[in-house]
């Protein structure tokens, strides 16, 4: 940026902050008097070397968010791994397997454990490495630091020390917490964007101390020294206490001089500052809470299953060891061939209790197969792959910002399929925080043809609904061909409006291709290009434009490339007004201390004229006043008061003759409000000289008055002036929703999800957005709970609380008494009331009310309250919650909810860092939940069920066999079979189930959002199903064991006369298990790609291949399995026929079950699968569409509901007319 320009700016920089109009901070206050603990920090400015030694050696600016480092990785990660009960159990088992009590060799215990733990640890290491790389990226950022003698040079962030003087340039992040010394502006102010800290997008002004303003050049720091004494590091973002000692003077410091790490310098060329807090001492890092590790509901339930299995394990171990003890005591002495007792007391008939105890350990190890060791690792692998699919989903990739969706933690995938309530932030999540000037009403005429997003979306929905005639509506509407009943026109009207809306949609599509002007989507030829001069009421239109271009506090900035102005405004809607004024031909181009210059294309559109308006007074906007005014003198010397504000406020202040257009304007305002536009009314007043002078005196008096009541006085004086106004018109600004938000909300509502909006915004804004998102609609009963502070009461706090309690009770009563099934309620509550409503004694009352309402909007809530509300919903309803947000103010909520989703793609990363999933836009939530969530839930649920099934099926055979060996703990299988069972032979098919299974395709998921409800209802992982699978496992184990045992009982098993020994029986049994469980999984799957086929049948083949290779190895390794397949089993027909019958017998009940289920009680996805399978959706489009529209959950929010409500309304009207017509029409309609 050109140096000259900055200087030019500096000259009027005082105006930027409107210092002349706003009370300045208390400069009279003396230095802070503090000492003692908590305020011990000393910073020697420009002397960083002092801070190299204790006690002034503070933490470096290096940040690390990793969990481990190279040294601590092994112990810590191993510790983490063995915190899982199952892993600990396996570790104990592995240790015990080194002792002689182990039923099988040590390696068969240790190898799978090492594999499983190693894999998990590798994953941990990888994740931590990524975190490390991210830290390093931050740590290696460069910043300009004073290196002595007034020379600045770049240094990486991590090498920054306390006391360093840094120079931060425009649009750069502050590397640490810094005390602002001076800026490129003369008065030492700078603008800071704290998006990363609190999510607020408006710029904040920071101001340097007067004393340090002189240091605004590199060279001036040559000999600068000062001392700062301040508070110790703490996480409070908005407080700071400290003193600056400079030049033997002590100056107090307050938060307005502190630039916080991770905030960004905006609109200021550069600032100089002293580093006070570095690295983890900085406020933002102090604020960083460790994100809680979340576990999904399914996983918690799985733990319960594991406990059940543990109980089962202990139980059968006890049975087995008691049985063993009895055998040892009474029978072992007779079994001479065992030569009991042995020297180690394992088989001592004299001490059966001791032997029994030893055996208990053996049994616990042996039956460990009941608990699938590979379960955790398989789930982890599956989840990582599922996360990969989420990350790679091209439909969740945002082209604009270039960010794909990201599953940041993979352990919540299935939770996505069970969400019940979504808690959403507004700004940046639902809206883009961009205002577009869309419509206006001037002198009672509405301008602006373009439809808002909501209208477009609703029109589309309506068009779709009516395309296939709704049977009920058709009854009412269709018989129009043969009669000309009076009410029939209504039907045509409906059609007509539909066509009109269609036209709107198409026009919208066209304009999208034009280069859009940011903040301006107005479209109406009547006003554009100077055409407004041909309109009636030209005076009012002119005034309207003038108000737009004059009544504001913005600063123009010339874009030198294009020659147009852009505006630096306080709020985005103000910016939108200015852009609109510019487009209408009233270009605000310059502001000086006393004047505003506007380049007007008036009276002729082609030749702009620059006009000067002298600003006499500026009456500020506050949330209490809800209006702002300027008083100015135009070129002709007339004094005008231009005012804009909330319609209710303005309407109260109109003069009698100023109400000319009030009726039509109100109508327009309602229309705008209904489609979710943010409205303001504009008015003016002509003042005569005398009146103004009198008033101005009072105003000046009030302004210069000293004392606490200055604000109040100013307000009163302003109020005096803002009366007798004349209404000009109203504006409608669209708080631009993010792309596809209404559609997405609609779909989510159809999927049965509830949406709560938690926003820091004003109630009005929140309600507007509620309308825009169709969370609110006309005819919905709004329950507004607000704290109307009755300051007269003795105990104001109690009074407020009582009043809120009353309001809640009344509202609940109202809902209870409501008879109309279609009645919908909306709860709107502000932050202050929420403070009380969230107190322990009231919160459940509040929650009950909120749950009864179709939509809930909480406005003016603090980040903490967001988190509290989330916790209340989570704990109060016990359902799964999902929080979505984009800013640091959402972090609490994101961490608190069961699932936190961050909006990435915007600059702030805090929310994303804290989140479990990040998506670039709100609309991707639909896909994330309805497709990925649904799939992942089903996959994981089926996978876990199957896992338990297979391990029970396998583990129990060991138990049965043991009972036949005198409970001695002998296993019928070779050690290697058992190692491979979980790790190789059955793990890949189940992983393929967990990764690739799809009950219905993604399109169908979207078309039938109701399918999503299978997740929240937990249809696939309820105890009924879990026990069903366990029972199936039990049955399978019985079949496998007893069929094998009976078939191989005592006779020869092949023509050669040989009888089956243990290894032959064991191998056959194992073959049966492999076949049975793999066929079972094939029956479970409903979606086979080549991968599933490959893995399932590959596993079976692998078993034979393994057996062959194992048998071919030298007997040193293979032992009794030597040549078992080739020599003993394969030539025996009985081996193959046993496999066949066992496999079929094992799967018969399940097959019958699912066949019966499908026959009598098909689930939704079964029917849809069939429809798809037979191509009925193509054949019978009508049916398909009808079902799709029926598949919506009964919902009261979303624009579908809104359309329905509208249709109902219409029908109601028709019905009324219909009934008055009497019998004639009854005939007609039948």
């Amino acid at each position: 940026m050109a140096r000259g320009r900055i200087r030019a700016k500096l000259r009027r920089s005082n105006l930027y902050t409107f210092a002349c109009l706003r009370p300045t901070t208390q400069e009279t206050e003396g230095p802070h008097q503090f000492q003692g603990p908590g305020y011990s920090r000393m910073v020697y400015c420009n002397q960083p070397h002092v801070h190299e030694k204790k006690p002034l050696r503070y933490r470096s600016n290096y940040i690390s968010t990793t969990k481990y480092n190279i040294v601590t990785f092994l112990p810590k990660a191993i510790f983490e791994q063995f915190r899982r009960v199952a892993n600990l159990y396996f570790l104990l088992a592995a240790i015990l397997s080194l002792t002689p009590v182990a039923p099988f060799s040590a390696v068969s215990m240790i190898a799978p454990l090492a594999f499983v733990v190693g894999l998990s640890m590798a994953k941990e290491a990888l994740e931590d490495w990524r975190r490390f790389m991210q830290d390093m990226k931050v740590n290696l950022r460069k910043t300009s630091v004073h290196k002595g003698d007034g020379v600045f040079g770049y240094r990486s962030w991590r090498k920054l020390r306390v006391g360093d003087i840094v120079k931060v340039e425009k649009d750069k992040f502050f590397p640490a917490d810094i005390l602002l010394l001076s800026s490129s502006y003369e008065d030492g102010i700078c603008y800071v964007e704290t998006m990363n800290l609190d999510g607020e997008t408006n710029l904040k002004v920071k101001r340097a101390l007067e004393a340090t303003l002189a240091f605004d050049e590199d060279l001036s720091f040559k000999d600068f020294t000062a001392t700062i004494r301040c508070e110790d590091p703490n996480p409070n973002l908005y407080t700071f206490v400290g003193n600056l000692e400079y030049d033997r003077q002590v100056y107090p410091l307050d938060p307005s001089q502190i630039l916080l790490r991770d905030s960004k310098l905006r609109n200021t060329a550069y600032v100089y500052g002293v580093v006070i807090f570095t690295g983890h001492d900085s406020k933002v890092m102090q604020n960083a809470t460790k994100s809680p590790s979340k576990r999904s509901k399914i996983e918690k339930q799985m733990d319960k299953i594991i406990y059940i299995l543990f109980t089962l394990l202990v139980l059968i171990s006890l049975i087995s060891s008691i049985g063993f003890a009895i055998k040892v005591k009474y029978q072992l002495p007779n079994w001479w061939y065992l030569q009991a007792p042995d020297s180690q007391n394992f088989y001592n008939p004299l001490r059966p209790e001791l032997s029994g105890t030893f055996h208990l350990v053996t049994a616990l190890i042996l039956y460990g197969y009941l608990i699938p060791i590979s379960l955790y690792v398989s789930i982890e692998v599956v989840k990582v792959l599922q996360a990969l699919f989420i990350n790679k989903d091209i439909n969740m990739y945002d082209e604009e910002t270039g960010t794909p969706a990201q599953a940041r933690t993979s352990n919540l995938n299935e939770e996505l399929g069970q969400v019940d309530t979504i808690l959403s932030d507004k700004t940046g999540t639902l809206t883009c925080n961009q205002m577009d000037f869309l419509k206006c009403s001037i002198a009672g005429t509405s301008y602006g043809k373009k439809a808002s997003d909501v209208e477009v979306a609703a029109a589309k929905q309506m068009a779709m609904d009516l395309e296939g005639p709704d049977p009920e509506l058709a009854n009412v509407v269709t018989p129009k061909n043969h009669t000309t009943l009076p009410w029939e026109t209504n039907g045509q009207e409906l059609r007509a409006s539909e066509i009109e809306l269609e036209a709107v949609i198409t026009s919208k599509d066209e304009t999208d291709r034009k280069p859009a002007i940011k903040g301006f989507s107005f479209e109406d030829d009547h006003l554009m290009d100077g055409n407004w001069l041909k309109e009636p009421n030209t005076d009012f239109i002119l005034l309207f434009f003038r108000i737009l271009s004059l009544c504001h506090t913005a600063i123009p900035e010339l874009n030198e490339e294009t020659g147009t102005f852009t505006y630096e405004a306080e709020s985005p809607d103000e910016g939108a007004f200015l852009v609109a004024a510019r487009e209408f031909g009233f270009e605000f181009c310059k502001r000086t201390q006393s004047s505003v210059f506007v380049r007007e294309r008036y009276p002729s559109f082609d030749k702009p004229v620059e006009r000067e308006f002298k600003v006499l007074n500026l009456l500020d906007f506050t949330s209490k006043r809800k209006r702002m005014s300027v008083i100015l003198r135009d070129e002709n010397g007339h004094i005008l008061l231009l005012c804009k504000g909330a319609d209710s406020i303005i309407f109260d202040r109109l003069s009698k003759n100023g109400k000319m257009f009030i009726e039509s304007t109100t109508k327009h305002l309602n229309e705008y409000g209904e489609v979710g536009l943010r409205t303001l009314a504009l008015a003016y007043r002509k003042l005569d000289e005398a009146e103004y002078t009198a008033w101005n005196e009072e105003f000046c008096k009030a302004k210069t008055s000293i004392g606490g009541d200055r604000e109040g006085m100013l307000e009163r004086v302003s109020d005096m002036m803002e009366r007798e106004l004349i209404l000009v018109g109203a504006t409608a600004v669209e708080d631009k929703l993010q792309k596809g938000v209404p559609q997405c909300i609609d779909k989510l509502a159809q999927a049965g999800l509830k949406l709560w909006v938690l926003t820091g915004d004003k109630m009005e804004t929140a309600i507007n957005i509620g309308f825009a998102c169709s969370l609110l609609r006309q005819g919905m009963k709004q329950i507004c709970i607000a704290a109307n502070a009755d300051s007269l009461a003795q105990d104001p706090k109690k009074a407020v609380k009582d009043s809120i309690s009353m309001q809640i009770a009344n509202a609940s009563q109202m809902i209870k008494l409501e008879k109309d099934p279609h009645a919908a309620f909306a709860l709107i509550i502000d932050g202050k009331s929420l403070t009380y409503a969230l107190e322990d004694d009231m919160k459940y009352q509040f929650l009950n009310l909120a749950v009864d309402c179709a939509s809930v909007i909480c406005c003016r809530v603090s980040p903490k309250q967001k988190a509290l509300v989330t916790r209340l919903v989570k704990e109060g309803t016990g359902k799964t919650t999902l929080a979505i947000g984009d800013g640091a103010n959402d972090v609490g909520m994101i961490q608190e909810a069961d699932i936190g989703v961050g909006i990435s793609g915007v600059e702030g990363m805090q929310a994303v860092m804290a989140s479990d999933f990040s998506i670039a836009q709100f609309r991707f939530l639909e896909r994330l939940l309805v497709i990925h969530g649904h799939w992942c839930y089903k996959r994981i649920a089926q996978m876990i069920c199957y896992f338990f099934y297979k391990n029970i099926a396998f583990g129990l055979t060991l138990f049965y066999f043991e009972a036949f060996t005198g409970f001695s703990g002998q296993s019928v299988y070779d050690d290697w079979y058992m190692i491979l069972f979980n790790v190789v032979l059955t793990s890949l098919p189940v992983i393929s189930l967990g990764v690739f299974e799809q009950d219905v395709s993604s399109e169908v998921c979207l078309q039938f959002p109701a399918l999503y409800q299978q997740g929240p209802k937990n249809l696939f992982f309820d105890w009924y199903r879990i026990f069903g699978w366990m029972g199936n496992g039990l049955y399978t184990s019985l079949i496998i064991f007893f069929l094998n045992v009976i078939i191989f009982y005592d006779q020869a098993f092949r023509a050669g006369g040989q009888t089956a020994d243990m290894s032959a029986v064991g191998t056959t049994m194992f073959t049966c298990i492999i076949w049975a469980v793999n066929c079972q999984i094939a029956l479970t799957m409903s979606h086979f790609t080549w991968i599933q086929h490959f893995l399932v049948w590959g596993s079976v083949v692998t078993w034979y291949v393994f057996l062959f290779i194992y048998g071919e190895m030298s007997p040193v390794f293979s032992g009794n399995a030597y040549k078992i397949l080739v020599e003993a089993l394969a030539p025996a027909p009985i081996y193959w026929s046993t496999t066949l019958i066992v496999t079929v017998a094992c799967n018969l009940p399940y097959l019958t079950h699912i066949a019966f289920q499908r026959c009598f009680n098909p689930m939704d996805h079964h029917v849809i699968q069939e429809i798809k399978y037979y191509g009925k959706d193509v054949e019978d489009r009508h049916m398909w569409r009808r079902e799709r529209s029926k598949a919506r959950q009964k919902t009261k929010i979303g624009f579908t509901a809104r359309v329905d409500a509208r249709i109902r309304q219409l029908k109601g009207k028709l019905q009324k007319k219909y009934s008055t017509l009497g019998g004639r029409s009854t005939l007609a309609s039948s």
Partner: protein
Amino acid sequence: MNSNNTPSSSAGGPGSAAADSTAPPTTRNSKRPKYSRFTQQELPACKPILTPKWVISAFMLVTVIFIPIGVASLFASHDVVEIIDRYETDCIPEDSRKDKIAYIQSSGDKTCNRILNVTKHMKHPIYVYYQLDNYYQNHRRYVKSRSDQQLRDRDSENDTSACKPEDKTANGSTIVPCGLIAWSLFNDSYSFSRNNQNLSVNKHGISWKSDRDHKFGKDVFPKNFQSGGLIGGKHLNESIPLSEQEDLIVWMRTAALPTFRKLYGKIEVDLVAGDVINVTLQNNYNTYSFNGKKKLVLSTTSWLGGKNDFLGIAYLTVGGLCFFLAMVFTIIYLVKPRRLGDPSYLSWNRNPGGH
């Protein structure tokens, strides 16, 4: 490119606009997931669904396959002729039956004569088995008590750690073969005669060839076997290598269940119905301590092995069950068919408003 999400309303200004345009488009697109049917989960897939047709044909298929197999198995089983003779009580003289253990442990001649009647023609080879009951060859202590190295390899003779307590003699010299299994080697012996003509029993080839060739060494000879105070079972001829001691090899293959048969030998002539076979047996093995039965079994085999009705019955049962199920489903299909893909079965149609 111009991001809608720039946080402030500053409309960029030259600085940020420049920053935007300097970002090369390639880096943006690099994050774009590459399209592949795999990552988009759109791989071609077959999605079989269980229509009644499929269910019925699956059950019928099982029926069609299983019934013949069952019938064939039953026939095979019926072709097998089996003579079983339980002798553990009968072979003890009446007067000693009160204390069988004392009898069996006493020295002296325990010869016993048994007569077997052949009721059906038996084609050679006729397999001779001994069957023990209630004998836990699968007990963990028993199964582990062996040394495969020692059996296979002469040099690993001292590898007897697993063999305790039958690893060394009292004076410390290694026992070959060591361990409880070998030590408790079955030592009843049978000889057969028909019409006073000796029926030779072929004891070769009764064990697995792989065992003889690879597990039991040709140069490993029994040593110090059964030389201790406690004699478990059969003595071994120390001049014959282990690979030819087939009784031992068969015995060393531990059985899976407490009731088991082991091959004793083969009679390689046909026996005709009506033949009377005299068996002279030496009743040496102590099963009396644990009330174990002893049986002598003569059996022919079919392609399925020995006599085994169960397999055939199981096949017929499962086949029959599947036939029954197929019928049930057919009836359901005929009586109360559910039109496939009938939307009226969707949950929202079945109980309207029941969400």
